[in-house]
């Protein structure tokens, strides 16, 4: 389940997230960005490296997923 979210209409397409993604799971065009769910491991390195807080880790969704797993 993808727990990393991209806040709409805020990305500057700078590529920090793509550079730090160990799974090659982020695709960036001139003004389009998407996370490839099948490759993403929710490691959150992209979240930490985003200079303008566009990428966020959805903690509630993570907690829900954990509860369901239990």
């Amino acid at each position, binding site marked *: 389940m993808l727990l990393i979210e991209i806040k709409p209409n805020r990305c*500057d397409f*700078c*590529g*920090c997230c*793509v*550079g*730090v*993604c*160990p799974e*090659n799971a982020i695709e*960036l*065009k*001139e003004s389009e960005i998407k996370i490839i769910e099948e490759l993403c491991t929710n490691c959150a*390195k992209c979240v*930490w*490296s*985003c*200079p*303008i*807080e566009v990428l966020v880790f959805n903690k509630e969704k993570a907690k829900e997923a954990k509860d369901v797993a239990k």
Partner: protein
Amino acid sequence: MWQNEYDIIIVGAGPAGTTAARFAAAKGASILILEKDRDVGYPVRCGEAISLGGLKEFIEPNDKFIAAKINKFSLNSPDNTEVILPLEEAGFVLERRVFDYELARIASNLGVKIITRAYVNDLIIENNKVCGVKFEYNGEQHTVKSKIVIGADGVESRVGRWAGLNTYTDYRDMESCVQVTAANVDIDPNTCYFYLGSEFAPHGYLWVFPKGEKSANIGLGVSGAVGKKRSASKYLEDFMQKYHPNASILTKIAGGVPCAITYKSISAPGIMLVGDAAHQVNPLSGGGIASGMIGGKIAGTIAAEAVASNKIDYILEYDKAWNDRLGKRHVIFDRIKDGIYNFDDKKFNSIAHSFNKVPMEDRTLGSLFKNALFNNPSLLIDIAKVFFTK
């Protein structure tokens, strides 16, 4: 519109890519550059500062792409002690938008073909050798073959990864930056200002680089280790509020600088990497225009020689050539960076206070550096190790 095959395909039309193209074209290679953005040179994700020496190796300084001439640094410690450092060598703040265009024109005039809005999304690999690219243009997918592909696709590079090179940036080495170009800022138009310390940019620095009268690039970078807790943009908002509350923000832009040593391999059969994509940024200063162009020059020259002699594997010599020219020096800079990263505010203050006792005429970057080292003997030992082991 383009041929089915070129000697060399370059992905990315920044300074590293167009410089690689220019030096390869001068030796007779046929070249295609594919740029994903609509414009060459825009958007500008760069502080735009460069030294005279860094510039002159490639292009004569020209007012049309120079926004400011720099003759001194102002280094500001956490307790607001200002250290003035006159520069031995002139520096410039560029107008990258014009500068990148100029480099692209020089390459084009040598026969290099450049296409913008061409998004490379995969490589063609045959017999474990890169021999072309796949790209999207005008909503359609295309393929073009080549003998060599040069990845000049920046901090967000994926070309190397597709070729099997291990190229991703450790989040702690990624300096995530945000910069505004501001007007109505009260600064000296010939001074580059740096602010150090935990208030401004922990594990990084904040810069104010003038761009003509009362105008400047103001930006900062923080490592991902800091960004975890607080983003670069929050730090910049605080600074602007406190130091330049009346400034107008003409541009605001984000960007990443990989402040690390060069990747272990920057070439493989049929593929070479240059610039940010290869981690050729000076890891201490974060400056990457000149070093990217140097990487481009070496790669372009070797690639063209490989094509001319029909011995494509000759491109594997590129790693050594780069390391001899700059790569090894960057290893030392990286160790120094690690040392400085561990300075606390008190240390920055004490260095500033003691350096301010040095008479103005004796102040050089070297003397400042010596001063900083004597304030921190453990760093001195670390640097000595780098010099004396191997």
